[in-house]
């Protein structure tokens, strides 16, 4: 029994590859069962190996616990954004500057991602967050493809108008004759091809500038990341609209494909442009299986701006890295 203790429990043991193998296998398996892609799980376990082989376990600490700690460190490192961004402050700064005509340039976001992940819903949550921070928001219906996409945004604009002003009458027009009120408005031009999309985007930004909006949120159609005919219009869209931030929405339900989804969207805008942020939606539907967020950040190094945790406007949260790592390790 004593030799068992010596081998497994007592600290101050030099860790060899041999010692780590079965421990790492187990940890990898756990990560995969939490929806971390196998290639990402392998990478993480290599990080742990690099970190630990040749080092000594601390007093009273087993190899297993030492490896866990190291993995926690590696996961935390992946999920922690490299730069801290205070978006509200950035928007504030921008909108306080006026050009020679006394106009401000609106801060423009576009939202991209594969089909059905929650782009339009999370765009509306973003709008709610911005409205709460006293910015005026123009929501732009650049999904001119999917049935009901424009009407979906109109319902959100009506809801948001009611939330900012109880006296808002649903379906009424604001002083510019559009859906919404003074704070939030819908810019739309119906349905059509990708030429229409770029046209709407440019018109909307000009309109937002003329009408003194602080922020423009552009919804786009869902697209398959493996189809070049769907992905290539993104590049010209981004060139024409020149958004300040491009946000990809990815859903927590997706498995290993999340790695490729994130990569392909990040590469869709050409050499000089990347994604700026992820929103990882539907985190409320996966229980402890939060692996997708690790996959997406691992694949691209792009930080997570928010996580979506439900279907209402307040279900948008800043990612707590500690919560995510604890959940993945539990």
């Amino acid at each position, binding site marked *: 029994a004593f030799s068992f203790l010596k081998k497994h429990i007592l600290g101050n043991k030099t860790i060899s590859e041999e010692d780590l193998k079965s421990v790492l296998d187990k940890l990898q*398996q756990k990560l*995969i*069962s*939490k*929806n971390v*892609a*196998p*290639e990402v799980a392998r990478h993480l376990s290599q990080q742990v190996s690099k970190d630990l082989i040749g080092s000594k376990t601390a007093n009273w600490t087993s190899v297993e616990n030492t490896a866990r700690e190291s993995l926690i460190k590696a996961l935390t490192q992946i999920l922690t954004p490299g730069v801290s961004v205070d978006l509200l402050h950035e928007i504030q700064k921008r909108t306080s500057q006026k050009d020679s005509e006394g106009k401000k340039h609106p801060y423009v976001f576009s939202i991209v991602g*594969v*089909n*059905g*992940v*929650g782009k*339009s*819903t999370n765009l*509306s949550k973003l709008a709610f967050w911005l409205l709460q921070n006293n910015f005026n928001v123009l929501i732009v219906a650049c999904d001119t*493809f*999917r*049935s*009901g*996409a*424009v*009407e*979906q*945004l*109109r*319902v*959100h604009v009506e*809801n948001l108008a009611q939330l900012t002003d109880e006296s808002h009458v649903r379906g009424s027009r604001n002083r510019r004759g559009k859906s919404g009120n003074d704070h939030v408005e819908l810019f739309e031009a119906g349905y059509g091809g990708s030429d229409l999309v770029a046209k709407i985007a440019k018109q909307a930004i000009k309109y937002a500038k003329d009408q003194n909006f602080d922020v423009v949120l552009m919804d786009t159609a869902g697209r*398959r*990341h*493996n*189809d070049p005919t769907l992905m290539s219009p993104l590049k010209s869209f981004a060139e024409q609209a020149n958004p300040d931030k491009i946000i990809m929405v990815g*859903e*927590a*339900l*997706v*498995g*290993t*494909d*999340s790695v*490729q*989804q994130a990569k392909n969207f990040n590469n869709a805008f050409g050499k000089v442009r990347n994604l700026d942020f992820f929103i990882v939606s*539907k985190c*409320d*539907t*996966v*229980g402890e*299986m939060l*692996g*997708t967020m690790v996959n997406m950040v691992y694949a691209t190094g792009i930080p997570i701006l928010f996580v979506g945790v439900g*279907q209402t406007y307040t279900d948008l949260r800043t990612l707590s890295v500690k919560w995510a790592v604890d959940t993945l390790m539990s």
Partner: protein
Amino acid sequence: MVLADLGKRINSAVNGALSNSQDDYASTVDHMLKGIVTALLESDVNVKLVSKLKNNLKSKLLDSKGDNRSISNGQTKKMIQKAVFDELCDLVDCRTGESFQPKKKKCNVIMFVGLQGSGKTTSCTKLAVYYSRRGYKVGLICADTFRAGAFDQLKQNAIKAHIPFYGSYTETNPVKVAAEGVAKFKKEKFEIIIVDTSGRHQQEQALFQEMVEISNVVKPNQTIMVLDASIGQAAEQQSKAFKESADFGAIILTKMDGHAKGGGAISAVAATNTPIIFIGTGEHMHDLEKFSPKSFVSKLLGIGDIESLLEQ
């Protein structure tokens, strides 16, 4: 279909292991199993299923070779392929007997359920078009009163496809809309009535309760769960929960035109013992294909002639 990629990888694991003549049989099997396990995990097949499949295969292969030490490499390969084939079939072919067939001149109600954004509304129209082209009188009902723009989406799809539809902009209770729609279409002697519902998930009890209530009033002849092919490890628990509450009898696997390998969906099939009947291969209303598990697995493994394999 990208799922074929999994087949290729399994095949190359089998071939690779067999071509290495230095190994004894047991290490050949080990080698091959490792390759298969990696391929399956990378395709999102559930972790527990993978380890079960691995153990089954291992004991099967080691046992059968034990009886007969002198068989040729070619025969060994066939034997291994058959064992792998059987195991994968067990995963996706659920032998639940006769599948649902709508009856002409009768009223058949089909209800759709599934997670948020999986493709229910789109697939409803696709299925309506499928049956309408086969001479059925089909109607669509939007019993999703929650998602913004849900009725407009279904309505625009239905109009494009020339399918009669029912829904409401003002009624907020989906149970009521569903009941009214079914009653109306029944009265008008529709043969197939397809009911679209909101997306929901296991973690929200109230949403599941609502699904049960809709099901109770529309009394579906068939309930279909729609699953996104890119779903990962959450597939098993979600589909089990849907099975318990909605007792769906078939699965439609959507977005198979994507890049995902569909292993999560295979796990859902295994977890609920429910067959996939159609796959969605695009956003347009005709992008729907019939699905047969056996030919799917044989394609997966690149086996042309399954029968010869089965006769072995």
